[in-house]
């Protein structure tokens, strides 16, 4: 982008008459807010609330499996629990947390914007999220959905009203995702600070951009799929029921056309977080900036071309399996590039083991493991053995809990000081990391060999399997015990979040010595973020260089109460950059 045009665009855009004063009072400030930061908090706390519920469902699932005949509940109740756990975790926890919460809070700050492109749309996206949550959980009053988070027809057609409510909830949250995707895409394309070219964007912004594209283009397919399922539930339109001429496999195609990108919708922001955290705490530039940014986009594109690998034994033509296997393997290349680049970032650094760094390094290990088991599942012949077993459950949770959640957990201690002005307690954070890391490996590790031995997923009881493999009972109990370590970790985190708001050390502007734009303004950031728009003349990862920013003259003169906006001291490089503009 040529800097002159960028400057002018922003000057035109910043008609001072459009800048409203900061809202006052709790209700206007925190409930009916248009501020991207507050909307991020709203997503955060709603998402954490659903996380606690969905997590407790997971614990009920694990407790049931401590006995091969099912320890605590009926098959029907168990089926409802794993269905609600999966549905809530995927749509109501992970996607809102990594895009809605972290993306909303961090992305506009990192590009030097004063808000997202469409604040009202952003507010609307959040508003309908609790409605979707209420709709989903209200389905439990009508017997609950039972067919797993995938809700494959025809079995899900037996769910009746609860199934229809499930469709409604997913449809609603899908609209929220689509709108957020559109909003973020436009924000990143149009609202970057002057001088911030595409290759000067922080990698988290690249990740959010890739995610926004997937949110926009993939979620529509899901909305259509569940919309049709809703019509079938309520108006008996035979889309999927084979008894009336529908195609059950059609639903699987449409579901996975969304749900494979969905996995990347929550893993790519985690990639972005790790790409921010590693250089800051290794005190050296991210290795291979362009390749990491490029591979995010490559993964986003490829993620639309691999959905049928979820369906190898499900009734597709054998020859059709091959292109999907090959494309799935192709995703391994950009993923590998990312992992190797992150490892190279650690090399010859000066590594500070903060909580965020521990999570990011733990992520490298657990996500790599999840990625490698994905290689097994992508091969058609080996998948014919592993499909539908505990191996898949193990793989998926290594990617999601060991990837997306670890990245999310790294982002909390990292950006908490910026959000609240206080540091998250380090000791509690590090204990929490070890609990989570050990709990995760203990819970999901043994699932791999249980699945290979012959334990299918979604089994409320496994007496027949346990009679052949008596060890299965021990390993299931072991997993249940380890899963409570993760419960303890999440509990400690929630406590820490509230405790540190009052008792944490005062953070200051830039406690980590980080270099992205959000660390140049006060903590918490003022309303409208940047009193003076910064001019960007470099990448934010050169720790041996002065900060690559300079104030422009684009000020909010009308609102002196924002206080002093601290910007780095201009240097020779900065002067050159300023001269260019």
């Amino acid at each position: 982008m040529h800097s002159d045009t960028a400057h002018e665009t922003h000057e035109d855009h910043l008609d001072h008459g459009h800048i409203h004063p900061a809202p006052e009072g709790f209700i206007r400030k925190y409930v009916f807010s248009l501020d991207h930061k507050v909307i991020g908090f709203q997503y955060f706390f709603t998402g954490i609330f659903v996380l606690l519920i969905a997590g407790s469902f997971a614990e009920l699932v694990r407790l049931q499996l401590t006995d091969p005949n099912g320890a605590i509940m009926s098959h029907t109740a168990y089926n409802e629990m794993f269905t609600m756990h999966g549905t809530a975790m995927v749509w109501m926890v992970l996607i809102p947390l990594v895009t809605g919460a972290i993306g909303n809070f961090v992305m506009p700050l990192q590009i030097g914007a004063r808000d997202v492109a469409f604040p009202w749309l952003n507010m609307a996206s959040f508003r309908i999220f609790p409605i979707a949550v209420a709709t989903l959980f209200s389905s439990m009053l009508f017997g609950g959905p039972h067919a797993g988070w995938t809700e494959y027809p025809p079995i899900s057609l037996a769910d009746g009203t609860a199934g229809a409510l499930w469709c409604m909830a997913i449809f609603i949250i899908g609209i929220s995702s689509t709108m957020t995707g559109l909003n973020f895409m436009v924000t990143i394309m149009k609202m970057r600070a002057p001088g911030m070219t595409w290759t000067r964007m922080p990698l988290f912004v690249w990740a959010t951009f890739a995610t926004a594209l997937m949110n926009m283009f993939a979620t529509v397919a899901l909305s259509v799929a569940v919309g049709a399922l809703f019509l079938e539930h309520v108006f008996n339109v035979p889309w999927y029921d084979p008894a009336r001429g529908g195609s059950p496999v059609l639903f699987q195609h449409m579901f996975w056309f969304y749900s494979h990108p969905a996995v990347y919708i929550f893993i790519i922001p985690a990639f972005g977080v790790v790409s921010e955290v590693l250089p800051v705490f290794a005190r050296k530039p991210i290795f291979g900036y362009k390749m990491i940014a490029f591979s995010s986009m490559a993964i986003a594109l490829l993620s639309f071309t691999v959905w049928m690998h979820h369906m190898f034994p499900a009734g597709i033509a054998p020859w059709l399996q091959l292109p999907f296997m090959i494309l799935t393997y192709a995703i391994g290349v950009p993923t590998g590039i990312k992992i190797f680049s992150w490892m190279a970032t650690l090399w010859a650094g000066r590594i500070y083991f903060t909580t965020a760094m521990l999570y990011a390094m733990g992520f490298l290990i657990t996500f790599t493991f999840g990625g490698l088991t994905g290689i097994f599942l992508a091969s058609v012949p080996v998948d014919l053995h592993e499909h539908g077993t505990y191996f898949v459950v193990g793989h998926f949770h290594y990617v999601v809990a060991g990837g997306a959640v670890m990245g999310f957990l790294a982002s909390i201690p990292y950006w908490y000081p910026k959000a609240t002005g206080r540091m998250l307690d380090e000791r509690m954070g590090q204990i929490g990391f070890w609990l989570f890391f050990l709990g995760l490996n203990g819970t999901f590790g043994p699932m791999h060999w249980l699945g290979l031995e012959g334990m299918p997923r979604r089994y409320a009881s496994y007496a027949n399997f346990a009679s052949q493999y008596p060890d299965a009972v021990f390993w299931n109990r072991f997993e249940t015990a380890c899963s409570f370590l993760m419960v303890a970790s999440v509990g400690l985190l929630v406590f820490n979040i509230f405790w540190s708001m009052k008792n944490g050390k005062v953070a200051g502007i830039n406690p980590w010595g980080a270099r992205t734009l959000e660390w140049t303004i006060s903590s918490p950031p003022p309303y409208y973020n940047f009193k003076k728009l910064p001019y960007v003349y470099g990448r934010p990862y050169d720790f041996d260089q002065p900060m690559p920013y300079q104030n422009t003259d684009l000020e909010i003169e009308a609102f002196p109460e924002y206080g002093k906006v601290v910007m780095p001291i201009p240097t020779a490089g900065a002067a050159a950059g300023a001269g260019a503009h």
Partner: protein
Amino acid sequence: MGPGFWPVTFLMLALSLICAWYFLYGNIDWILPGASNPLTDRTNDIDALFKFMAVSSTAIMIFVAGYVIYFGVVFRARPGESREAVGVPVHDAPKLEFWWTVLPSLLLVVLTALSIVTWYKIYFGTAVPALTAEVIGHQFYFEYRYPGLKNSVYSKTEAMHLPVGVPVRILITSADVIHQFWVPEIRLKASGVPGLVQNLNFTPEHAGTYSIACSEFCGPDHSLMQGQLIVEPVAAFNAWLEKEKTAAAAGGGALNLAEGTADAGKATFAQKCSACHNNPPTPFDQKLVGPGLLHITDDPAHPNLVSGKPPTPENIADILQNGFNGPIGQMPNAQANGLSSKDIANLVAYLVSLK
């Protein structure tokens, strides 16, 4: 590289080689059931592919985790170090990046090639199958059909049989929702999708008894949808098939009531009878559609069956076989109910046991 880089690298290499040796030559039956004594030719092919992946991905995992930990240890910030100190400012290393793009790509190309070879064997590698059996999924049991056999075989009461050394084709479909046919020792599975028939082809190589599991969620009792596969020598298989055929051809005449077991009958009752007769069975007057069947043989108020005959096992079997059409309603015959002779024998044994 950092202090101790090469010793650490060699350590990881050694560890990778040990793991490779274990996967290739160790006993990994705990990961792949029956790997040391493969049940079918496909088991062998898929296990070979699995082992190749296990060896290479274990090595990658060891190196990634090893270097992450090693870099963390040797490049940690020492206490008292200035916060201003920075790491070595490398931005990229084109040669290194070239190799770590090309080598994994090559590995994936090899993996794809090996997978395609195995894939071809799975779908097109079995010549004309000598035996084609059909598997039909129901909530919550498997039904098996064999050529020349009129009646089906139900998994809750009976096992699926396959001969050793004969190339077989299994056709898989479903009567209600989506099910999945999986025998872990064969390594193959396919969904039974209503309205769609899929096939699996393989040759069993030795005898044994194995579990069949449904591995696609199919309803409340999904986890109870278990079957049994008996692989037996050709002679034994043929004898079994002939016996089933004779029983089927002779219709009710071949009914051998002595063969029935009450336990199996109880399961069949829950599947086949409970829509019209209370389950668990109740006294005669507590009707659902048909009468309650508790005390069918020893009810003083109803000394005879609805057919007017005394409640002997033979007369009960007669009603099951031919159905009943009388003043209190209609009951379909065995064909309409999908009952095999074996089922009838089991049901009679069960009903007689209800005292």
